[in-house]
């Protein structure tokens, strides 16, 4: 957090190095898989790159995909910094989506769009926050593991949504989905003819907000202290139990907000599968980003670009998209082992040097 300080800068440099090495290594290993499929890896990666980054459609799709990941990701980063593990991003997302669409469905079509958006955003934040806060409160009260509770609440939210779109909220026509939003209530597109929508600005604002909270505010300081050292937090007079609920509620609020943004920006209705495990992907991104909210933005764009590129690669080269899951997993894998390898390498080098000195 310290500005312009050399240790911080050095750490940043090291992280970037580790990340770069991991990505390169992951791509190299993935090449083997692609080769095994009888496709030229170079062609495959060119197609991937081209699909994600060189076309209006690809770029727009990257933005659209990154939007919910950024919002959930900064929430996850916030929770993790506060020492809590929010694996309930999907559940909070669904709850936020369901509650916020009701605003758009039940307000008269003549309502100004801005009013609908603000109300829906607030409802999404509150409902997602409630869903997340629940697990924090349970941990504070009964010392239950928030990891298990958030995962369980994912299922509750998923089935709740399933019931709603098959039952009370189902639109006529047989497909399990709610009615669509009024056209005027839909978030505007930022690139016409694509899925990229104004929600990306909400995502960027969220990332900036979380960054600012940790950089400047006592709230961020307290959250971080609870996460870094619960004992020190108690000693500092922080009511850690209350903060557990608060941290999870804040984290859930972001996921709930993502639900609103995705519904109003992309699908215009709630249906099954609108979160393709955003929660877990966001968790992964938050960890890749070392819990830095601004890095979460970059990480989300990167992962989205990988996915979009993969889809394009699948079409061009008939390489299965699952290869991209392999690439993603490999990046994580290498990120985890690279620091270990690095320190091992350092110590073996210093040992050799030492032996030389002795000799």
């Amino acid at each position: 957090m310290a500005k312009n300080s050399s240790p911080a800068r050095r750490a940043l440099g090291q992280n970037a190095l580790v990340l770069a090495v991991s990505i390169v290594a992951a791509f190299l290993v993935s090449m083997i898989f692609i080769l095994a499929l009888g496709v030229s890896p170079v062609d495959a990666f060119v197609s991937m790159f081209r699909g994600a980054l060189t076309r209006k459609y690809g770029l727009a799709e990257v933005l659209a995909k990154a939007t919910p990941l950024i919002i959930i990701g900064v929430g996850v980063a916030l929770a993790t910094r506060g020492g809590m593990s929010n694996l309930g991003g999907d559940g909070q997302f669904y709850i936020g989506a369901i509650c916020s669409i009701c605003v758009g469905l039940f307000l008269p079509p003549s309502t100004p769009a801005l009013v609908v958006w603000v109300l829906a955003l607030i409802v999404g934040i509150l409902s997602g926050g409630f869903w997340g806060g629940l697990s924090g409160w349970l941990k504070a009260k009964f010392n239950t593991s928030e990891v298990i509770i958030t995962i369980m609440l994912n299922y509750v939210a998923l089935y709740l949504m399933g019931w709603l779109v098959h039952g009370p909220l189902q639109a006529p026509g047989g497909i399990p989905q709610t009615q669509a939003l009024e056209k005027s209530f839909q978030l505007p597109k930022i690139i016409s003819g694509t899925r990229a929508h104004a929600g990306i600005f909400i995502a960027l604002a969220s990332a900036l907000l979380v960054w600012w909270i940790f950089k400047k505010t006592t709230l961020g300081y307290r959250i971080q202290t609870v996460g870094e050292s619960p004992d020190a937090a108690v000693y500092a007079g922080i009511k850690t139990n209350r903060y557990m609920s608060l941290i999870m509620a804040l984290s859930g609020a972001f996921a709930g907000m993502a639900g609103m943004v995705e519904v109003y920006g992309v699908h215009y209705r709630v249906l099954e599968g609108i979160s393709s495990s955003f929660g877990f992907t966001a968790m992964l991104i938050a960890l890749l980003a070392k819990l830095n909210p601004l890095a979460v933005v970059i990480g989300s764009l990167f992962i989205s670009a990988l996915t979009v590129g993969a889809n394009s690669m699948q079409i061009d080269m008939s390489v299965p998209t699952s290869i991209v899951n392999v690439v993603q997993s490999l990046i994580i894998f290498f990120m985890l082992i690279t620091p270990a390898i690095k320190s091992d390498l350092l110590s073996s080098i210093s040992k050799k040097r030492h032996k030389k000195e002795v000799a």
Partner: protein
Amino acid sequence: MSKHILRMDQITKVFGKMTANDHVDLTVRKGEILALLGENGAGKSTLMNILYGLYKPTSGQIYFNGEPVSINSPLKAIELGIGMVHQHFMLIPAFKVWENVVLGLGGRVILDEAAAKEKIRALASEYQLEVDPDARISNLPVGLQQQVEILKVLYRGSRLLILDEPTGVLTPSEKVKLFQTLRELTKDGFSVIFISHKLDEVMEISDRVTVLCRGKKIGTVDTKDMTKEKLARLMVGRDVVFTVEKTASKGSQDKVLEIQDLSVKGRRLASTIKHLNLTIHAGEILGVSGVDGNGQSELVEAITGLRPVESGKVLIDGKDMTNRSPAEIIKAKTALVPEDRKKVGSVKSYNIEKNLILRDLTNPAYCKHGILNYKALEKTADEIIQEYDIRLSERQSPVGALSGGNLQKVILAREIKSQPRLLVAMHPTRGLDVGAIEFIHKKLIEARDAGAAVLLVSAELEEILSLSDRVVVMSGGRISGELGEKDITMEKIGLLMGGEKLGGSANG
């Protein structure tokens, strides 16, 4: 046969960037007690862990009985005849003494209980250890548990005993007993490595002393040629003042802390506080002495709101602060230097600035409307670094990178800066080097002279003796006695620590 049982030759151990042992030589003769002296972090534990097979040395060679050996596991060490009594005992409380002794010996499937007990009894009587093989560990006092550890080592046929800070947990009388046992053992040809940073003990028990400083060996000397001052100079590299300059307390009648009939449930029975009364006035240092685990932690936690009070009252500046939240008690101008400076007293990933506001987040000088002013903080931090002579390699490093002494200075600076009415300091110098101890003592007295009431909890008798205006001794969760400034002597405190009442002779 060589006259040395052990020779460690040019041992080096590197952890990442840090060199914990730098070409250290160490020899132990048969039948001697060698003290390994050094400040915390000097590399004593690393060296001993290498000897006991827990770490692999980066380079260097160990000779045992003149033979080069490679000790790659504790099992190998035990096989060779090296036994270690750890600072924290490795006993299973639910097991009986004899079971703990034979535990981990392997070999036969069926234990010969009678034979094992017989052997334990024989060993115990030979070295005047008062251990009953059938006693359960959880029922034994700490001193006896340590004897079980020693017995365990002897049972396995060790000829070289390593004792890591063995006196830290003992009462003075238990310490005397331990030293007797050690002398007995050396008479029979056993060798002992005695790890300590306490100069008095080293002077008393050892034959020779090897001094380590920052991973390097400073030298090995015969104890009889040394004085405490000379040893301290070797250890720190400069002269050290052992007596603290201190004027008499001004003796204000202003009661800052008043504890009335306090009962607090403790971690253990012995540390449960029972009906305790205590008063501290402004401008005085009250020393709380006693063996660790007799309710001192609980007392401090109850005062600072970290542990619920069952009954009784805690008054700070006349206001009832019983069972108030830590935040409210901080507001009541109570400062705390906690026992655990790494886990509780500081956040190791934060730099100095961020640690300085740990307990001061509502201070308008640094924080307005929930937004922190790091500029202002930086200035304060610079001042404190100057004033407290805090040494850091990089200004913005996390405090986790600071040495114990420097970290404690940061914590003390923060607590004193808040201009407390009540300053509670728990083991403020434990594990610190002599230089830092000196400085912290000076600062505590300064705080007192500035009008704060200081509650000093310490197990170091010397510290209590040199700083306190009054002393209370805690034993079994009660105050076993109180001594006025003129009555404070090592002997009286020692008696009270054992829970004995001073036989009517407490004059005043």
